[in-house]
Structures are given as structure tokens and as C-alpha cells.
């Protein structure tokens, strides 16, 4: 492993908000870097810095980018777990950098940061999301209704609404799909995120294309490839019970047939 180290003294500006810096700790971020414009090799680079343990991994990445090495590249936007930009592998597990506090992941040891698995790495932590969104688009992720539109809203009981509540929370961050061992080797698999989004409509009482979506997921690369490894459920930053949703789709397929 080729590891280089970059160190920083903490910036005065960042802790202007805090009084004193007794609470600051030294953390090392070990980032897996790849820049095709420089080398075809992956390198691990250690960055050492002073951080407040209550800060997020995203803050640490920003500190690197803004103060140590502007070439470090990653996606981010909202910084509070709502946009799904910054799914990455932190200490070996998929998480959102903006939802992971340093103190919760043992900052005593170097914290490893790598791109999510199973998608083409384009630069540092940036991966190609196209195959992921392709799978999403392939499951007809939109409401389909027949007949005339009602003048007012379609009625839906609170229970019917609750039936698919869990899967409406998805932010398409890909943490689940890229944690799935089946997906890593065989990117042909639809992956949990696509199934979650199909589930959201299959179980929506207003929708009338459940049958078609089920047929799509009955495919060779559909739900039956799931081996219930639960990595997706563990990884989902929105706390969606992904595996449960997948099982519900499988059962819906079975009951449809029998």
C-alpha cells in the first residue's frame, strides 16, 4: 500500500465558533484516491487534522479539500442526509459522509474513506451513477393510472397510505445497491434501490401498473437474485427496511402466480 501523509494545523476560522480547542482531537482520514489524469494506480493518502469529534466526516473531507489538497474530489450538496450525494465507504461500510459523526466511528484509528463499490470509479470518491439510475428508470418508477382523472384528489385511506410509507423515503443515494454483494460482481442485478422504488408503487393503492412492475422484477436480474444479505438494510441512511421491501415484492410475485 502506498500511503502518503498530509498534515494540517487546524484553521483558526473554523473554530472561531467554539471557545477554546481543548475538545479538538487529532483524526486521520485515509482516503482512497484515484485520478486518471495522473495515474492508473490507486493510492491511499493519509490526512491528519484537528477536528471536533462532533463534526461530520464530510466536514473532514471539506477541510482536506479546502485547506490541504484542492484536488480531492467528492460529491456533496445538502450536508444533512437529504440529497443522497455523498454515499461512500467509511471504515468499510457504506454511509453518507454528512450523516456520520467522527465520534461515532472510532476516530482514534485512521478512518478509511473509499468510493462505493460496484460502479465505475471516475475520480477519487466520484463514481459513475448512470447504471444505478438506469436500473431505477427500468422499474417504471411513476404512478400509472387508467380511466378519467378525478376532479379532486384520488382518495386514499391513511392505512393504504401507510402501506408504502417506508419506501417513499428513498433519496437514491445508492448506499444500498453498492453494498450488495450480488451487485458488486454482477452489476446486471437491478439492485435494492430499484426494487425499493418499484415497491413504493406496487403497494400504492392508487397505482394500476403493479402487475407490469412485478413482471419486470421477475426478470433474471430481478428480485430473485437477492440473497437476503441485509447489507442494504444496514446501509440505508434513511432507515428503510430494504430487505423487507424486497421480500414483500417476492411474495407479491408468488401470490400473483398461485
Amino acid at each position: 500500500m502506498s500511503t502518503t501523509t498530509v498534515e494540517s494545523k487546524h484553521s483558526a476560522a473554523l473554530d472561531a465558533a467554539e471557545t477554546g480547542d481543548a475538545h479538538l482531537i487529532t483524526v486521520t482520514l485515509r482516503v482512497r484516491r484515484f485520478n486518471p489524469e495522473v495515474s492508473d494506480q490507486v493510492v491511499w493518502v493519509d490526512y491528519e487534522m484537528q477536528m471536533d469529534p462532533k463534526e461530520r466526516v464530510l466536514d473532514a473531507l471539506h477541510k482536506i479539500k479546502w485547506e490541504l489538497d484542492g484536488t480531492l474530489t467528492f460529491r456533496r450538496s445538502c450536508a444533512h442526509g437529504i440529497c443522497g450525494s455523498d454515499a461512500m465507504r467509511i471504515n468499510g461500510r457504506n454511509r453518507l459522509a454528512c450523516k456520520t459523526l467522527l465520534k461515532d466511528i472510532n476516530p482514534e484509528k485512521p478512518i478509511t474513506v473509499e468510493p462505493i463499490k460496484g460502479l465505475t470509479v471516475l475520480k477519487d470518491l466520484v463514481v459513475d451513477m448512470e447504471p444505478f439510475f438506469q436500473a431505477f428508470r427500468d422499474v417504471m418508477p411513476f404512478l400509472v393510472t387508467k380511466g378519467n382523472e378525478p376532479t379532486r384528489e384520488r382518495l386514499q385511506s391513511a392505512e393504504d397510505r401507510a402501506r408504502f410509507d417506508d419506501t417513499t423515503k428513498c433519496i437514491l443515494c445508492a448506499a444500498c445497491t453498492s453494498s450488495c454483494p450480488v451487485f458488486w460482481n454482477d452489476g446486471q442485478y437491478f439492485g435494492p434501490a430499484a426494487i425499493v422504488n418499484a415497491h413504493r408503487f406496487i403497494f400504492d393503492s392508487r397505482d394500476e401498473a403493479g402487475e407490469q412492475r412485478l413482471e419486470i422484477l421477475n426478470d433474471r436480474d430481478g428480485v430473485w437474485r437477492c440473497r437476503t444479505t441485509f447489507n442494504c438494510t444496514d446501509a440505508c441512511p434513511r432507515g428503510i427496511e430494504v430487505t423487507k421491501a424486497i421480500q414483500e415484492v417476492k411474495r407479491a410475485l408468488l401470490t400473483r402466480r398461485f
Partner: protein
Amino acid sequence: MQIHKYDTVIVGAGGAGMRAAIEATKRSRTAVLTKLYPTRSHTGAAQGGMAAALANVEEDNWEWHTFDTIKGGDYLVDQDAAEILAKEAIDAVLDLEKMGLPFNRTPEGRIDQRRFGGHTRNHGEAAVRRSCYAADRTGHMILQTLYQNCVKEGVEFFNEFYVLDLLLAEVDGVKRTAGVVAYELATGEIHVFQAKAVIFASGGNGKFYKVTSNAHTLTGDGQAAAWRRGLPLEDMEFFQFHPTGIWRMGILLTEGARGEGGILRNKDGERFMERYAPVMKDLASRDVVSRAIYTEIREGRGCGPEGDHVYLDLTHLPPEQLDAKLPDITEFARTYLGIEPYTDPVPIQPTAHYAMGGIPTNVQGEVLTDNTTVVPGLYAAGEVACVSVHGANRLGTNSLLDINVFGRRSGIAAAEYAATHDFVELPENPDSLVVELVERMRDANGGERVTDIRKALQETMDANAMVFRTEQTLKQAVSDIAALKVRYKSISVQDKGKRYNTDLLEAVELGNLLDLAEVLAVSALARKESRGGHYREDYPTRDDVNFMRHTMAYREVGEDGEESIRLDYKPVVQTRYQPMERKY
């Protein structure tokens, strides 16, 4: 350089952009350029709800909604636009429902509604349940639903394309829209999109504040591109500070929390809003509540060792209610503060939230180049635009409404324009400005760091152009920004590559923020009154005689290449509501 040709080009894939895209795609060949994947847009962060007088749970009508919007905007609202907003709100919500948006439901299966700041029955009598919502994820559901429908309609997206320039061409002495120029993040390539009609829907610009609910990517690129091309910006001094951001982080805790019964308390545990707004209390409009919080803090009744925040108290609400109605914000408190909202109050402080101002448009979304003239083929909608339905202060839930109503209107208008007009010839070297900008940034090797300048900008904006402003603080802001603009000229960009050069783009974005911050400060300095979100301690009252008018800021470039800002004013459209004193 690559050249693409589309009838309609939409810049931005947030709520406004995608609502427009759904209409435009049906009517014309449309491309959507977005610097983020559509579902990463900040509309997804909106929590509380979307206003519409559906009257599903109690008596309500769109006239009351119009009135509340006008009063909430401290009468700076253009009343014809507010009427459209309130009237079309009902269909906007129903349309979203039909597109599949999973709203919370009443026991009868209708769309449920809840209370929100400033929304009242019968012109201010009492709070009314007008906000249609899906837990505290309304924006998320809107964004997802619109994206889903874009997939359904087969909308063509160009993801991670940064629009950096707007192309206008003079035809027969009239400035007309020719297209836009974009920078492709993945490759560093520059693309020219020739278009008959262009819609800007690129969102807000809150990132020049330090404590803000806005995403890192809300850097006002659209406003700045228009600004650079000589188009005016309207009412930029009006920036909304949302009362309840998580202390120091600025992450938003929706007003819906107070709509559900949450209470603001100072260090003595007092429900201080009773003193400031006897009728609406914690649900007074946002500017009022934010000022009240800062007044408490200034007068020594703030909480914590430094007395720099107050509490949002949800502990008297049943946990089941919090779980059902406010699941996300309670999780934020747990994740980021380690606080359990069931049992402990949450420390909050006002957070920079929403730009009321922006690119001036009429009610069709057509962009104005002065008080009355439209730029043929150019449209704007959403937070980037100023219609103006929000006036001096936006009511909660009116923005999600705004993006849907005016997103739709501009989408239809733009496509129809495209259907009846021809392409305007591209200017020579259409990409020259962007090429120059990108080259300059890539080669930037000065001694200044982008971070330092951005931090300094945020510090000065927080200190001098926040909730309370005075002549002195604003002058400070203006001179600080001027100094920062000088420093900005000698920045350095470390990443010299082409692929995913976010280092370069952050530098470009900082340039946009600096421009817009300057407009804000200069406009604010000239507005010697207090109105809505703009509060001058040296002029604490509203001055309808001199300032019942919109600010129009223009960028002037002198003979010597020296830039300056010229301010002009535009009358407010009043139809039926006469300005009154604003009390909650």
C-alpha cells in the same frame, strides 16, 4: 466545444425546473441542464408543506390565502401575482397528487392539512390549516414525484452540466435569447446549447451566509449569469431568516414543528412569543419570530453558556405525534446534536433560508430587462426568480407552491414561445466568456485561498447583513465585499485537471456569491426602512411613502472597465389590498 440545439432549454432540475420540464417536454424538444443529479436538488430538503386553500379540514378560500401572502410579504408583494399563486395553488396540489405524490391523509382519505406561520382564516382571525404535507418530507416527495414524472415523460437531462453563461443576441435592436453555455463536470468540456427559449430554475444563493439551511451548491449561478449579462436583479436585500435552524449548523427544523404545537422558550423557560405576537404567537411570520429570538438573545435571555440560542420545545407533544408528523427533524436532532426531542428541548437559532429577490419576471415567467420590457425567449421560475409573490418576506409553504405554479407557467409559456419563434443566431464565439473564465480559473496561481475568501464573506454577511442591519453594518459589508473581490482576483486553484474539477467550480461559485452579496448589501443600504425580512435598526418602521417599491439593481460597466451597481425602483402592483400595519 460542442453545439446542441433544442427548442427549450431549462437550467436546473429542482422543483421549478422539473415542473417546467414536464410541461415543456410535452410541447417542444426540451433539454434540462443541471449541475446536480435532479434528485440532489435542494427542493428535496423542504420539509413543512405546500400551501393551498383546499379547505379539506376547515373552511378556507384562496382569497384569504392571497391576503396572507400579501400581508406576510409586508405589502411589497405584486398582488396580481399573489392572486394567481393562491388561485392556482389548489390545482397545483391536486396535480401533484395525481402525479402520485403521497400526501398525508385525513380519516376520509383526503389530503391532510396543517397550520403554518402566517396562514390565517378570514384575514388574520386565527391560524388556519392550509399546508398540504407529507410528514416533514414534503419537498422530498415533490422532488421525487416530479423526477418520477420526468422519467415517465422521457425528459432529456444533462446531469452535472454547469451553466455558466447566458447567450443574448441583439436582433433589430431587441435583446433576445440565443442559448446558454455549460461546462460538463465529467470531462471539462464546454457545450453551447442553442435554444429558442431558456428557463432559469437554478435555485437560491444562501451560501454567502455562514449559518444557513441552504446546500453547499446553492450559489446563485443563475442570478449571477443573468447579472453578468446586464440583466437586473430585483429585491435582493430581502433575505429570509428562518427562526428555527439547528444551533450553529443551520440545518432546518421546519415551522411545521410549531404548526404541530412546538413552542419557543428562552432560558427562563418563558414562551416569549406571547409578548411579540399575542394572536399567532409561535406561528407569527418568520421575520417577526427571527427578530424576537435575536431580541431575546441580545437582552440576555438566550440559552447556553454563551446565551446565543433559544429552545424549540417539543417535549409536551406525544412521541407518536412526533414520529408520525416530524420523523426527519427529530432524527436530525438526534444525529447532529445527540438530543432526544421527546424529552429535551432543541437548541435553535435563526438560519439564512430563502432569497425573496432574484431575476425579475412577470406572471408568465418572462424575464424583465427593466421595469416593463421582457427579454423574448427568456424565462425564470423558482427561487432564482422574483415574480414577486413573496415581497419582503415569504410565508412558509409558499415557495413549494411558487415553484409548482410558476414552474408550470413558465414551462408552458416557454414551449409555446419556442413553437412560434425561430432560433436566434448564436453570437460569434459563443463560448468565449466561459472559455476565458475556465482558463483563468484553471491557471489561477495566486496567493489567496478560495476557502479563506468564502469564510470571510460568510462571516461578514452573518455579522453585518443578517436579521438586524444598520447603515454602519451594511457599509461594513459593502467595503468587506469589495476588499474580498480584490483578493478574489488573486486566488489559486489547485486542481488543474479536466475531469471532475470541483476545485475549479468552487472558485467560480465563489465569484457568483461575491457578486450577489454585493448586490444584496448595496440594495439593503439604500432601503432606509424596515420591511419584512429587511430590518434596519436605524429605520425601524416601514416607510410606504418612499419605499413601497421594488429595488432593481443593474450592473454597470464604465468606460474604464470599472464595475458598479446602479439602483432603480419599480412600482408594486396593488389590486385590492391596501397596506396596513402588520400585526400577528
